[in-house]
C-alpha cells in the first residue's frame, strides 16, 4: 500500500512537471513573440493554446533517425540520461510544507549531482553523434558546466551557512524569520552569482553555447530527431524548472510569502517559480550570446571570486552578529 501511494505520487509529480514543460514552451514562444512585437503561435486552438500538444504529437510520430556512423549505445543512452537525471532532481524539491517525495538531508548536494549528471548526457550526445557540430556543442557544454558548477556551488554556500543545513525543507524553514521571509537581501551577491550560474547551467541564452543555433546548427542535439530530440527538450525545460525551484527555495523563501494569504500552500512557491521562469524568457529575448572566451572569463574571473567574497562576507556577518 505504501509502495502504491509512493508510485502514485511520483506519477502525479511527473505528469504535472510534463504539463508545465509543455506550457513553458508555449509561454516562452508567446512571451518572446510579444517582446519582439510579434504574436507567437496563433493557429492551433484559440491563441495557439493547443500548440504544445500538437508539437508533442508531431515529435512522437516523426521519424527517428540514427546516423550510420554514430556510436549506437551512447547515442541511444544520452537523452535518457539527460531526462532521467533532471526528473530525479524533482524528487527532493519541497513545493510546500511536507510536499516532498524524498526529504533528503543532502538535498542541495543531490541537485548538484543530478545537474552534473545531466550534463554527462549532453557531452555523451555530442560525442556519440559522430558529427562536428555536436562534438563542438558537447565540448563547450563540458567546459561551461565545469566552470559554472563551481560558482553555483559557492554561491549557495552562503545560504547553507545561514540556514545551517543542506535539507531543502529546513532551508526554507530557516528563512522564515529573516527579512521578508527570504534570503534574497542578506544574500544579494550570492543570488546574483546564482542567477548567472543558473542560466549557464541550463544552457540558456546568453550562455547557450552548447546549442548555439547560429553557429552549431543545434549544438549537441543536431543529429537527434523525433522523440529523442523531444527528450532533450523536456530535459532542458525540467532543468530550468529545477533551477528556478532551487532559486525559490534558497533565496526567495520557498512557500513562505512576504505576507500571508488564504490560498493553497504552494501558491507562493508557484508565483515565485513562474516569476523566475519569466525571467529566463525575458533574458532570452533581450541578450545576445556570449563569446566563448567571454564566457570563460566571466565564469572564472568574476563569478567565482564574487562567490568566494560572498562566503567571506557571510562568515564575517555570522561571527559578528550571530
Amino acid at each position, binding site marked *: 500500500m505504501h509502495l502504491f501511494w509512493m508510485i502514485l505520487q511520483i506519477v502525479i509529480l511527473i505528469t504535472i512537471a510534463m504539463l508545465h514543460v509543455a506550457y513553458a514552451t508555449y509561454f516562452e514562444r508567446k512571451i518572446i513573440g510579444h*517582446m519582439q512585437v510579434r504574436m507567437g503561435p496563433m493557429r492551433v486552438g484559440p491563441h495557439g493554446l493547443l500548440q504544445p500538444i500538437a508539437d508533442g504529437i508531431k515529435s512522437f510520430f516523426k521519424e527517428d533517425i540514427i546516423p550510420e556512423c554514430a556510436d549506437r549505445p551512447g547515442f541511444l543512452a544520452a537523452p535518457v540520461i539527460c531526462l532521467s537525471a533532471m526528473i530525479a532532481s524533482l524528487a527532493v524539491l519541497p513545493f510546500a510544507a511536507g510536499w516532498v517525495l524524498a526529504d533528503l538531508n543532502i538535498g542541495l548536494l543531490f541537485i548538484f549531482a543530478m545537474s552534473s549528471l545531466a550534463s554527462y548526457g549532453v557531452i555523451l550526445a555530442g560525442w556519440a553523434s559522430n558529427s562536428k557540430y555536436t562534438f563542438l556543442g558537447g565540448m563547450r557544454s563540458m567546459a561551461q558546466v565545469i566552470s559554472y558548477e563551481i560558482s553555483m556551488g559557492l554561491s549557495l554556500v552562503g545560504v547553507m551557512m545561514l540556514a545551517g543545513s543542506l535539507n531543502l525543507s529546513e532551508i526554507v524553514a530557516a528563512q522564515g524569520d529573516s527579512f521578508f521571509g527570504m534570503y534574497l537581501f542578506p544574500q544579494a551577491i550570492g543570488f546574483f552569482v546564482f542567477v548567472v550560474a543558473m542560466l549557464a547551467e541550463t544552457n540558456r541564452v546568453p550562455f547557450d553555447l552548447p546549442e548555439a543555433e547560429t553557429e552549431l546548427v543545434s549544438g549537441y542535439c543536431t543529429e537527434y530527431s523525433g522523440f529523442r530530440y523531444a527528450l532533450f527538450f523536456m530535459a532542458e525545460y525540467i532543468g530550468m524548472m529545477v533551477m528556478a525551484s532551487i532559486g525559490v527555495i534558497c533565496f526567495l523563501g520557498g512557500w513562505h510569502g512576504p505576507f500571508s494569504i488564504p490560498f493553497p500552500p504552494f501558491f507562493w512557491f508557484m508565483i515565485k517559480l513562474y516569476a523566475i521562469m519569466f525571467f529566463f524568457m525575458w533574458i532570452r529575448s533581450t541578450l545576445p550570446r556570449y563569446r566563448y572566451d567571454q564566457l570563460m572569463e566571466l565564469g572564472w574571473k568574476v563569478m567565482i571570486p564574487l562567490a568566494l567574497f560572498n562566503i567571506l562576507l557571510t562568515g564575517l556577518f555570522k561571527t559578528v552578529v550571530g
Partner: protein
Amino acid sequence: MLVNYKPQRNLLETVFLVEILKGMALTLKRMFSRPITRQYPDEKQEPFPGFRGMHALARDPRTGGPRCVACMRCVTVCPSRCIRIRYREQEGGARLVENYEIEALRCIYCGYCEEVCPVGAVVLTELYEYCSYDRESVHFSREDLLGNWDRFMAEKKYDPATYINPFWRPRGLPEERIAAGNRRKVPREWTIAGQPVGRCHRRPGGQAESGDQGVEE
C-alpha cells in the same frame, strides 16, 4: 572620423549592469505594445500599385484569344529566359501563337516582358497566391496564362474590356519611344520629369526632353 564604438561606462554602471537593465526595460515595454504582424491567411495584404505577381496573358475581348502577336520581344528581353513561344505564320504575315510558356519558377519578376510588349499582352498581375506542390503546375502554358488572366479579372473585379495598368509602361521614357498600345496615363514619378535621378536632373532647368503628355494629374 573617430567612431567611439564602446561608450565609456563608469564603475557603478558596470557593477549594476545598467546597459543590460536598459535592454530588459525595452523588451518589457515592447511586450505590452501591439504586434505589428499580419495574421496572413485571415488578413491579406492588398498589393501596392505596380505589384508584380502571377503571370498572365491578357485576353483580347474581340477574339477571345491572347492579344499576343508573337513579336518575340519578351523572349529576347527576358533576363532569366523563362519565356518560350511557338507560333505559326499565316498568309499575309500575321503570326498565330500556338503556345506560350512561362516557367514561373525561373522568372525573377523584373517586369521587362510587360514593358517591352507592344500590345500589352504579357502581364504580371496583382495575384500572389499561386504556390503548389509540384513544378508542373507553375510551368504555365498558353491556356494556363489565359486562365490566370480570367482569375485576375474575377478576383479583383476588374472589367476586362477596359482594364489597363499604367505600370505596364516602361519607366521614364518619352512618349514617342513607347509602342502605341502602351501609351497610357501614368503617375508623375513614372515619367522623365518625375524621375528622382537621371537625365533631366543633371541638366539645369530640369525640363524633360520631350513629351510627357501621359502624366496623370
